[in-house]
């Protein structure tokens, strides 16, 4: 239904054109759909209270000007090398993440709700991780099936009994939050090596340049302190006296998020190392400098557990450093996030996070989960197989939108093939309903149109407390009707403005 139809049904108010109304003027192609919550407009086609100024401004900016802004951002990203790599696409190893210049707005109250929910979740997850690698109370008490945790490929038996500094297992987290007509919910936890924060900062820079007046007018909360906060979080995890020496450990320039690794290391003023740059001698980690070896105290690793140490984990890893885990166990180096945090990333464990919150914190979850069916249970498997065409099915250890089936957008042969995989290894899959993700205004194909979005806020958890950066990577499914927002699947991103009021 076109928003003009909403308007004609009684939603129109005075000054609609000035305020920027869906279905008219600059928003002529902006079609509201009652199935989806719209971030900019109410159902009657008028802008939400917090978005009036944005609506007015967008209504005044000619389409050609918006196109110029988008092109300017694209060229700047290309020249500055703000790129990512798509796995398996050999023909184009470097991609520019598509940026939409139109910001998404959240009020202070909305953000407060999200922030409280994420902090609560992170606290509970850290307690849970400590528990499963030590006493295992939650397993004994039946909060979560023990075999699900102990059988999880991300469970690291080597971490049993290891004392993690300040009991901070997850120091850097990214939580994917969606909004549906029922409100905000957590879609995924990223507790291993969440990425995207550099694009959040790049989006902010781009939007500030493109819409400086509007930015000032909105009194938006700043996100630029993230690298400083990250550094102080990492330093807070170090032990001993003096300022610990921090390094960012990257798999190297062929990794999809290499730009981000380099960006963060540069912003923090620390070394960007690869496994081959580190040497372990007498259980102490050294970086190979031009002037000799120098000790490293804290490693912000952007590399999966499996690849960190070929002696302890995958022996075929060319990316890690032999003996690194030994140094970690000996307490001579801190790794953030700690090895073994992938259990909390697992999509089957995700289903139990509300129970984990209740068990460890004695609180009700602030943010809801999305309904999740575990295919490891016969009922869950039967339900999933019977409703494949209506569900989203994911691998429990998957990420980046790889290896998932979006039922309504799949063909019968695809569903058949996926069903066979499900039957062969049910415990490796979960299913969720297709979410009616909210939509935000985007400049696509020369005009303003609504597109589905989510947001990934980033949380830092050190011995100095928790910090949720007021913003996030707002991901957009740029193709009409598409619900997959991952950049690796053709999604783009936009800035998220968290208002002070």
């Amino acid at each position, binding site marked *: 239904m076109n928003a003009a139809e909403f308007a004609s049904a009684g939603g129109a108010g005075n000054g609609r054109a000035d305020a920027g109304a869906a279905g008219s003027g600059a928003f002529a192609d902006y079609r509201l759909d009652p199935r989806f919550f719209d971030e900019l407009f109410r159902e009657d086609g008028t802008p939400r209270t917090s978005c009036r100024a944005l609506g007015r401004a967008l209504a005044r900016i000619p389409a050609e000007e918006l196109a110029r802004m988008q092109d300017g951002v694209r060229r700047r990203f290309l020249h500055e*090398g703000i790129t990512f790599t798509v796995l398996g696409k050999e023909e184009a190893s470097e991609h520019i993440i598509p940026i939409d210049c139109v910001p998404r707005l959240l009020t202070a109250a909305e953000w407060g709700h999200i922030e409280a929910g994420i902090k609560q979740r992170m606290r509970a997850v850290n307690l849970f991780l400590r528990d499963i690698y030590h006493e295992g109370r939650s397993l004994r008490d039946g909060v979560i099936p023990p075999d699900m945790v102990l059988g999880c490929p991300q469970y690291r038996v080597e971490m049993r009994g290891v004392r993690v500094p300040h009991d901070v297992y997850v120091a850097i987290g990214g939580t994917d939050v969606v909004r549906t007509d029922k409100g905000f919910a957590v879609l995924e936890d990223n507790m291993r090596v969440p990425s995207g924060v550099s694009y959040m900062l790049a989006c902010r820079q781009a939007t500030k340049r493109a819409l400086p007046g509007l930015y000032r007018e909105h009194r938006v909360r700043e996100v630029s302190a993230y690298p400083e906060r990250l550094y102080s979080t990492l330093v807070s995890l170090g032990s001993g006296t003096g300022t610990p020496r921090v390094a960012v450990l990257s798999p190297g320039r062929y990794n999809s998020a290499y730009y981000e690794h380099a960006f963060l290391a*540069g912003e923090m003023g620390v*070394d*960007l190392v690869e496994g081959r740059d580190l040497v372990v001698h007498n259980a102490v980690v050294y970086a190979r400098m*031009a002037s000799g070896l120098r000790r490293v105290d804290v490693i912000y690793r952007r590399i999966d557990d499996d690849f960190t140490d070929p002696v302890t984990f995958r022996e075929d890893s060319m990316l890690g450093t032999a003996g690194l885990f030994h140094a970690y166990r000996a307490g001579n180096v801190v790794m953030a996030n700690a090895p073994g945090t992938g259990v909390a990333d697992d999509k089957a464990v995700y289903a139990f996070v509300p129970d984990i919150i209740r068990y460890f914190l004695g609180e009700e979850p602030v943010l809801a989960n999305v309904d999740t069916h575990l295919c490891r249970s016969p009922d869950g498997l039967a339900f999933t197989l019977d409703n494949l065409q209506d569900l989203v099915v994911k691998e429990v250890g998957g990420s980046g939108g790889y290896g998932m089936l979006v039922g309504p957008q799949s063909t019968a042969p695809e569903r058949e093939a996926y069903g066979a995989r499900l039957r062969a290894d049910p415990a490796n899959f979960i299913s969720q309903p297709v979410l009616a993700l909210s939509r935000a205004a985007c400049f696509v194909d020369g005009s303003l149109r609504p597109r589905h979005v989510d947001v990934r806020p980033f949380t830092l958890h050190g011995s100095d407390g928790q910090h949720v950066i007021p913003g996030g990577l707002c991901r957009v499914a740029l193709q009409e009707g598409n619900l997959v927002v991952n950049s690796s699947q053709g999604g783009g991103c936009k800035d998220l403005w968290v208002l002070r009021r």
Partner: protein
Amino acid sequence: MLARTAANFYWMGRYVERTEHTARLLRHQLGGLVDTPAEEVALGWRVVYRTLGQSAPDAPADADEAEAFLVADAYTLAGTLVEDDTNPDSLVSCWGMARENAKQLRPQLPLRVWTGLNRGYLWLRDCEFPSVWRVGPAQLVSEGIDRLRLLAGVVHATMPRDDAWRFLELGRLVERFRHQTALLDNWDRLGCVRGEEPRLSWADLLRVCGAYEHYCRRHTMTVRRAGALDFMIRDPEAPRSLRFAVHGIEDLLLGIDPLGGRHPLAPPHRMALRLAALVEAGAGGPARVGAGGAGREPREKELFEQMGRDGDTLHELVMSAYVDYPVAEGLPA
């Protein structure tokens, strides 16, 4: 600084220098295509290809190198050195390698240095060589040189004079020394046959090296073999003289390893001193270049070959002293 980072700066410097060197040779060669006799053009290509370590183009089995260049077409010869990304020494490959090294240096590299390098690479990569060839290929390499000069200016203006800058410049000067040695050797070897008139212009050699005006101001506009070679070896102020490169290398190594920092002196530093002595001796000592007249003498051949070998050894010593050293040697005392 991380050892790998030092190596990246060093290689970035080498590749940027190699790109500019290739572009300079090509600018001269392509600029002369319009009005130069075919034999001279072919000789010019031989100098370019030999200096860059490229093999001669395919030719009939009974043809020698000179004939191979005489029958080869300029479009293919130039294209191989400009746009052929399967040739590791082409402009686009060298620029791409400089960029790959720079990509790993993002945390240390000023943004403007990266964007200058990246934009230049994207510009060259996206150039349509066939169209460029129709309107004037010399313009393409001239613009490439301008972009590289601009990049050098940005480096000069924005980078602090720390080890990052030192390794970058060290790479440039080691590469310059190697290439200039090869250029002087091949120009002299192919352009100068004992008892004959020079087949290549010595003034052109100075032009390729960007030293012609400087030479004229310092000496005379009549350029002869002995003067040109001597100038390009020993002049302390010409940026492409061997002496300039060697003294620069010595200063940079002194910055990386200050005197007294190591006992004995670091091996690269010792080699730089040896090279300096060789250059000085080549200029004024028993092996003085060109002293024997117009023709090339065996000792000059030996001098250039010795310089080439020592240049390679210097590179290996830099790598083993600062990048690939044994762990036991690097442990803190």
